[in-house]
């Protein structure tokens, strides 16, 4: 088991290393003048020269890479030209918003997905199942950014139920930031109205992500469920006189868990891409929007930083999921041991 963990950890480090190489390549090797690239569009000659000296851009590539890696190891992503602060500080400020959005979306998705799967499995070829099939067919082609805008159109422009953008209504004062998670902070401040306001702002962005996850994941979860029902041990269970309900909950669901885990892990990768689009559309002040706004004014250090952080996040998620497999599936334990 320990060897398994060590292997997976080493793998994660390798991925991070590769992304570091990639980002290094993209920021130091590809641009004609890396100093001008990092200094931004309107930089003066003096600024460019200063950047060149600061980052050591005239030194051999190997040395540069060593410095780069060293910087990454301590969390030094350079300076943002737009905010004039270290990128690491900016990331720390904006990360909670992104995490809140991701976590809430994911939890809602898992819950809804579970109920949908059960409903479809209990009434195969029923109307729930047909709806799901229709939904997944349509849903794979809906761009997440379009979906977000469509939801804005319906719920803000037409119905006026929910806000257009932002994390909290502008005209109101947000609760003091303790954890950085607005929902929690509002609850800690003991103000139900604040919780409500935060929820309202969170709804559309989260809904956008949830719907997209459902469209992609439900198709695969459903396929996994259908395939599971064909397996011989189900026939054995029926031969024992086990009811359909018990078969579903005790046998089938338990066995599709590892396939579902695989699908879910992949979903995470998608989510990390979608969150950028969702933050842009809804003006959600997370690291996606931060990096994008920087990108638009040719401030590239945050973009590179986002690449590293997202990949690191995905690596961590993968590791966690990998740890879950042996717990879920006894057959994997033997391979892992």
């Amino acid at each position, binding site marked *: 088991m320990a060897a398994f963990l060590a292997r997976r950890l080493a*793998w994660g480090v*390798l*991925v991070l290393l*590769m*992304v570091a190489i*990639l*980002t290094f390549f*993209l*920021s130091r090797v*590809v*641009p004609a003048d890396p100093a001008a*690239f990092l200094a931004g569009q309107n930089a003066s000659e003096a600024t460019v020269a200063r950047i060149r000296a600061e980052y050591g851009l005239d030194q051999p590539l190997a040395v540069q890479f060593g410095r780069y890696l060293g910087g990454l190891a301590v969390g030094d992503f350079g300076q943002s030209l737009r905010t004039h602060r270290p990128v690491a500080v900016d990331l720390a400020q904006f990360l909670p918003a992104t995490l809140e959005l991701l976590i809430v979306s994911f939890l809602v998705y898992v819950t809804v997905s579970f109920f949908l799967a059960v409903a479809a499995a209990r009434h195969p070829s029923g109307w729930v199942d047909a709806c799901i*099939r229709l939904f*997944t*067919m*349509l849903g*794979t*082609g*809906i*761009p*997440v*950014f*379009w979906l977000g*805008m*469509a939801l804005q*159109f319906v719920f803000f*422009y037409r119905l006026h139920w929910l806000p257009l953008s932002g994390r909290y209504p502008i005209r109101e004062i947000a609760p003091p930031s303790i954890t950085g998670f607005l929902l929690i902070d509002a609850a800690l401040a003991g103000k139900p109205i604040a919780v409500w306001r935060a929820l309202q702002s969170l709804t559309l962005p989260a809904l956008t992500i949830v719907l997209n996850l459902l469209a992609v994941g439900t*198709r*695969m979860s*459903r*396929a996994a469920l259908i*395939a599971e029902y064909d397996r011989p041990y189900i026939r054995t269970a029926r031969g024992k006189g086990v009811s359909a309900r018990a078969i579903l909950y005790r046998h089938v669901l338990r066995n599709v868990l590892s*396939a579902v*885990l*695989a*699908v879910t*892990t*992949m979903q995470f*990768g998608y989510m*990390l*891409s*979608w969150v*950028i*689009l969702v933050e*842009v559309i809804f003006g959600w002040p997370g690291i996606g929007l931060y*990096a*994008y706004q920087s*990108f638009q004014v040719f401030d*590239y250090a945050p*973009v590179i930083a*986002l*690449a590293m952080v*997202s*990949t690191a996040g*995905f*690596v961590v998620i*993968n590791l966690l*999921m990998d740890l879950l497999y042996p717990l879920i599936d006894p057959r*994997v334990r033997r*391979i892992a041991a």
Partner: protein
Amino acid sequence: MSSTAPTPQDVVAVLATSPSASASASDRALLAGACLVFAVFAAFALLPDLLAPYDPIILDVSHRMQAPDWEHWFGTDEGGRDVLSRVIHGTRYSLGLAVAIVLGSALFVVLYGAIAGLARGWVDDVLMRIVDLFFGIPALVLALAVAAAIGRGLETVVISLAAIWWPGYARLVRGEILSLRERPHVEAARAIGVPLPALLRRHLLPFVVQAVNVRVTTDIGYALVAVTALSFLGLGAQSPTPEWGLLIRDSRPYFGSAWWYLVFPGTMVMLAAGAFSVIGDALASHAAGRER
């Protein structure tokens, strides 16, 4: 990761292409509809000048922001341009690019996957580890970084998306070859000493091509969505190119009142992606049926 036990990516790959329906009458009608949609879009991509009623680029400010009517089926945008014409012209940039990327990735990668599948052992391991590395990077984030480095434009889109797509095909081809080499006819051919290139050509490639076809068709829908997403962020096509993602981006200031500006380009994306998805499904069912 053991190279013999199915990995999460393998599981997902199987689930993603498993046919979701059986061949009933309504499904056949659906397939017919999808083929029709495909034909329409193909026409749009190949003959936009012939089919579009208006010019997609020239401004006509006197007719700006008009709701759909008989003159302008999809309405007009803020520059007075006919949205339908822009959508038709945009087909080759959005859908065309998606098709090119997917096909290009697939073609390139067949050799890679074949080598891995045939060589096995440590060669396979190394090649596949490289593939797995690429699975670990969120796509859009990578595209953003690439765009930062080489600037915006279609090349960026092509490079970023090709980098995202190729690992999937490498795995697919390798998996196919691995399962194919156990088949009796392949073993028989090897036993009588058929040389490797002929073996590839006659016994392995037909099946590989079939599997890749199915995947390619389904993937075009996803690639299309990805292309439009990149353009939406301004990383890909630039104004005034009527790329669908760009159209949606341009609609942002106005869509609250000009609903048609948002709805129609988005619907085109959904229709195209949906059509390819249905056709891909049908190909998958067909392939599965032949296996049996």
